[in-house]
């Protein structure tokens, strides 16, 4: 049972990382266009933009 001391925090940390990831992606507008995102994944040639992290605070929202 001592293993709990190790496993429980580990499980919670993993969960928290998942939550952080979700909140991060939400903040970055990843859920703004679910329909387009689906198509982008199978598009043959995504137009290439350098340094293309969409600047926060912009984007169609």
């Amino acid at each position, binding site marked *: 049972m001592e293993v709990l001391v190790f496993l429980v925090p580990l*499980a919670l940390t993993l969960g928290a990382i998942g939550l952080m990831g979700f909140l991060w992606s939400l903040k970055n507008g990843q859920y703004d266009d*679910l329909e387009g995102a689906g198509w982008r994944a199978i598009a043959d040639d995504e*137009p290439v933009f350098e340094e293309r992290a969409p600047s926060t605070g912009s984007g*169609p929202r």
Partner: protein
Amino acid sequence: MQATRDFSHYVRHLGSGLSHIDLAVEGVNCAGCMSKIERGLSALPDVTLARVNLTDRRVALEWKEGTLDPARFIDRLAELGYKAYPFEPVRAEAVETEQASFLLRCLGVAAFAAMNIMMLSIPVWSGNVSDMIPEQRDFFHWLSALIALPAAAYSGQPFFRSAWQALRARRTNMDVPISIGIVLALAMSVMETIHHAEHAYFDAALMLLAFLLAGRYLDQSMRRKTRAVAGNLAALKAETATKFISADEISVVPIAAVRTGDIVLLRPGERSAVDGAVIEGQSKIDQSLITGETLPAKAGPGTPVYAGTLNLSGALRVRVSAASEGTLLAEISRLLDNAVQARSRYVQLADRASRLYAPVVHAAALLTMLGWAAIGATWHDAIVTAISVLIITCPCALGLAIPAVQTVVSGAMFRTGVLLNSGDAIERLAEVDRVVFDKTGTLTLPELDVTNAIDIPKDVFELAGRLALASHHPVAAAVARASGARTPLAGIEEVAGQGVRGFVNGLEIRLGRPSFCGADQIANEILCRDPEASVVAFRHGETRHVFAVRQRLRPDAAAAIATLLKTGIEVEILSGDREPAVRHAAEQLGIHEWRAGVTPADKIARIEELKRQGVKVLMVGDGMNDAPALAAAHVSMSPVSATHLSQATADLVFLGDRLAPVVAAIGFARKALRLMRQNLWLAAGYNLFAVPLAIAGLATPLVAAAAMSGSSLLVILNALRAHRGAREFC
């Protein structure tokens, strides 16, 4: 006089030397369009971002400040084959987007917490029946509390806030019992944990929050999508004005940039976007969108012009006036305010259910507590059982029952071309037993159509159509449209107030007034037969033809009306147009009840009269004069071609040239209402099964979790049936 286009009103300046603009684009609906547009736009120099949003049908663009004129993007998109227009998100939309992302954040937190607490709860549940030592159980419970309390405090905000507001206003709503249930569940769980008890309800409280937030989010996202598409349509209707920036320099500006006292130019064939008075020029104007009257009226200096008015012949200079007291717009907006207030008393199905729900549940919990105390249990046990009653009855399924159906139905309606402005419109639409149509632009198509096309030889029609492309006049535009002409003729000259002329193979061709083409006699014959029509004459050498142009009924109007009548819904026409025109339409459609020449106030009066008789009215209209009646009716609908005002007032907006969406929407709404009722009964049935268990003290957290998720899933599955639509109507 070439106008410059000034879109600076829409450009946002980001801090980092970049400019940003949002464009609404028409016709983007596949992945191909998406990459075509993005590649096409990012090929322009200095563009740093071009991103299509396929859900909202919009493009976000960023470029280095000052290097490009935003009008360049519109031209580029036109080259690619898309019509675009600068877009300014309405405030309401921005607020809703903010709310939606907050709800999603809350949902994420609640779901994370619920899952982790569940992970800790399962060992407790299995340990309780085997070999778990109390210290371990307490440890797990404390850990659960550590996750649950902050998570509930954050993700419960939407409910707590709304409950608090309701209580402060001395009302109750669904959020009040939800908040009480959650707070009591958490408080009791903490108390139980302190006293080393076997059960704690942290998992139930958080799961409840997650399910309810999912329902809220569904509800919200439905409305948000509709609003986004409706916003695009409004932008694409290109509400611009041509403004004089100096005595002889003009610029095309968005309406939002026009101020009182500005002078705007209204060219022939243009629809006015402002209210004002003519200061220079002579013309005929078509006010059918405002008054319903289809015959054009003369306009000269001093004539008032309202937004929505179509200028037919000459160019007018209009001084913009504020919508002060006594103008038509002021009158209409006053009627509108009254009508909107009168309708806000409608109580939604969910609220009606919750009014019944809260007292019943709280009484049941109280009785449970007293009952247990009466048969000799300790107060502690009595209170714990009472709270478990509250937890298990908490309206998980009830919170999902209605939003889930609404979301599915709004998706189905969306595909048939109907947009919803408000969620409760579905319920109101389902109760409709009389449909009141406006005539002009609603039963008829907004654009004019050539009625004697079969009498005219095909080659003549084609040539006339190509010539008509050179003219802005709406009657000529109707000829061009009907002929399907695409290639305009070269070297066409416009004769002001008369028509257009040019040469083909050495022969002169003319299109315009009958006198201009020497075809007065043929024109008179046509006008004798059909006094409602407008005529335009065409002359090619010595051959002369006259096109009769008039408003045409929507192609499936007769079929749609017949379907409505067959299903027992009464139909009526209320139009501001003249009697013969309305009578003709009514006879063609087999509608016995109609009124002509009615003013906006008359329309409201008629609708109020019907209301007093207990009739639930669906008003379908498009004009500015319909807006108050739309707001007064039980539920209302507008075609996309409507003026801005009536579109904003309508509960539903339908797309396309056909009336079928109106009929289909009623069918969908009826089916949806049935499913909502079923869902409420399912939720009630679940309580009937679960509450006795809770009262008997058998509702352990395990039972609560199973019952709650089971009932929620059942409700969602039932809602999915709305997808298949309403067979009896389509």
